[in-house]
């Protein structure tokens, strides 16, 4: 190799490492141009007493506010302990950022500076008898930041405030979460949220609607101390289920079937952009929207990681994606984790062209009734019924493939129902009523759902609750194939 060649090769290597890609175009990820100047975090005993979440860049709920143009974004997310309702009748003892689960979404752009502060207000007095978890230490871990965790992500005690700042160097949808041990428990109790970082020059497409959907799991059990919240039983973290990765609820934006009741609006012909983050803590998500195809998927929310024409996007814990799709015609497009075990636990939502979602044709999915039970067994029975049975049975909506369950405890004895739920195939051979029912319903036998005694008791509690409601008070619940 002569000297000129050596010089050329050297320049090419320098360009590749330093500031340009092989094509000579500026490298958007040139580390020499990233802001990595450290500013030490500050911890103080100054307790913030105002709003739990503050900042023009914050969005509450699914709808994402437009980008705040300020290059410096002041963000406050205080930690609190509060009771949230993760499913009808399930009041859960949660730990939060900004007093919401998930925490508020931060929206910013590459190059923006985030000035963050957080007061640990988990010890804040609450009216009445305290049923929230005992105050404890918390911390903040921003995946969007490139900082020393020993300095910025340290745990602070109740009453303390931590302040630190960082610059956003990469575009993407990044998780934030509490990093205090046991981290698993802090995340499963609700301490997470998203930071949406746009590319420095914005996204390459224009979306008509922009939403954030955060998938997470809850691991709830009845409070062993049997505390109540407004007459309803309190649920607390089930650490055994948590360690076994067996959630009781898998949800979008913190609520079982929440965006079924309150769909995300869109109009026919519009391009919808959804930033999806799976915070886990332990399950993957196979995010899919029934009725459309993802025109673009930007894995981890970075347009440089683009895929086209995708049906689902697979997200591990703390993985994210930005998906864009068109609304082809009027309808309700169902967001779902296509791991249907997760969907059946509540990971379902709608993007709808009508203000109200239709009460049918939701592909096996759940429509909550207007009233809900509070007895824990009945609540569990309702959730199980809505997950497994709505395809063939309605609640007050008339017969489908099988009978309407409204009134079933008046038509059949409790013992008969228990035996039927346990061993339907055996009943069809031995019981005259079961044989008659099979004939009435076109010889379509009810499949054995392999229910245990505890589950059967929960179903019966739910059926009894249904039949105890005043006539006409239940909205017919149904789901079709």
């Amino acid at each position, binding site marked *: 190799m002569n000297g000129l060649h050596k010089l050329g090769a050297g320049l090419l290597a320098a360009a590749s490492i330093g500031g340009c890609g092989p094509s000579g175009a500026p490298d958007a990820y040139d580390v020499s141009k990233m802001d990595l100047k450290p500013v030490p975090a500050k911890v103080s005993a100054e307790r913030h007493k105002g709003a739990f979440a503050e900042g023009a860049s914050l969005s509450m709920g699914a709808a994402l506010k437009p980008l705040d143009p300020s290059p410096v974004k002041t963000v406050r997310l205080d930690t609190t302990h509060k009771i949230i309702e993760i499913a009808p009748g399930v009041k859960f003892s949660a730990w939060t950022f900004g007093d919401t689960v998930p925490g508020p979404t931060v929206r910013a752009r590459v190059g923006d500076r985030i000035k963050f502060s957080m007061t640990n207000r988990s010890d804040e007095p609450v009216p009445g008898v305290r049923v929230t978890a005992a105050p404890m230490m918390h911390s903040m871990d921003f995946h969007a930041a490139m900082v020393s965790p020993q300095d910025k992500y*340290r745990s602070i*005690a109740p009453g303390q405030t931590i302040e630190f700042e960082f610059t956003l160097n990469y575009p993407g949808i990044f998780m934030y979460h509490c990093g205090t041990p046991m981290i698993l428990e802090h995340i499963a109790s609700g301490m997470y949220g998203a930071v949406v970082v746009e590319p420095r020059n914005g996204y390459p497409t224009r979306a008509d609607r922009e939403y954030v959907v955060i998938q997470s799991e809850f691991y709830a059990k009845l409070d062993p101390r049997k505390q109540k919240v407004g007459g309803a039983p309190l649920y607390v973290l089930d650490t055994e289920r948590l360690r076994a990765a067996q959630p009781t609820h898998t949800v979008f934006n913190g609520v079982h079937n929440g965006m079924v009741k309150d769909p995300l609006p869109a109009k026919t012909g519009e391009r919808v952009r959804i930033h999806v983050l799976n915070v886990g803590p332990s399950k993957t998500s196979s995010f899919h929207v029934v009725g459309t195809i993802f025109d673009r998927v930007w894995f981890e929310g970075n347009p440089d990681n683009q895929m086209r024409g995708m049906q689902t996007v697979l997200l591990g814990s703390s993985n994210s994606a930005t998906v864009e799709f068109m609304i082809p015609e009027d309808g309700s497009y169902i967001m779902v984790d296509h791991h249907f075990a997760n969907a059946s636990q509540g990971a379902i939502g709608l993007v709808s062209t009508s203000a109200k979602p239709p009460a049918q044709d939701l592909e096996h999915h759940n429509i909550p009734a207007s009233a809900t039970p509070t007895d824990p067994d009945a609540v569990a029975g309702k959730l199980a019924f809505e997950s497994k049975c709505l395809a063939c049975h309605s609640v007050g909506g008339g017969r489908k493939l099988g009978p309407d369950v409204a009134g079933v405890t008046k038509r059949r004895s409790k013992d008969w129902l228990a035996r039927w739920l346990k061993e339907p195939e055996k009943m069809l051979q031995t019981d005259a009523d079961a044989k008659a029912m099979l004939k009435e319903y076109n010889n379509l036998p009810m499949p054995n759902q392999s229910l245990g005694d505890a589950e059967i008791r929960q179903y019966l509690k739910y059926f009894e609750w249904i039949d105890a409601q005043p006539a006409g008070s239940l909205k017919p619940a149904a789901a079709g194939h």
Partner: protein
Amino acid sequence: MKAFIAALLLGAASSALACGYCVEDKIASAYDHALVAKSLGMRHHVAFYHLDGPLKASDATKRALLSAAESVPGVDKGSVRVSLDTLTIAFAFDPKRTSLVAAQSALDKKLATRKVSLFPMRVIERPGELKEIAQR
């Protein structure tokens, strides 16, 4: 976890747990807010230490540590908190009856028979404060 702590100690032998992140996480594992609030209300202090030595994770070990710390003059009865997962011990003490140095020294002597020693981490003397404990 123990391997992690061991590695941490190897790296921080001279600076006694210089990794602040780990220190605060360890404190979090033994932090009891009710105890802190009660102790500060009595103008007592709450100290946190890393436990260094061959400690078996068992109820017997925990009981022995609790007993050793509670027998130190000036340490409040019922105030000792131990996390064997993170090898952390915390206790409240009355600064009018003993000093932080004296309490630590007394407990160190009691634990020496088990080949366990204390690495000082933080002390809470006022609400909202986690003050670094100076090395002896």
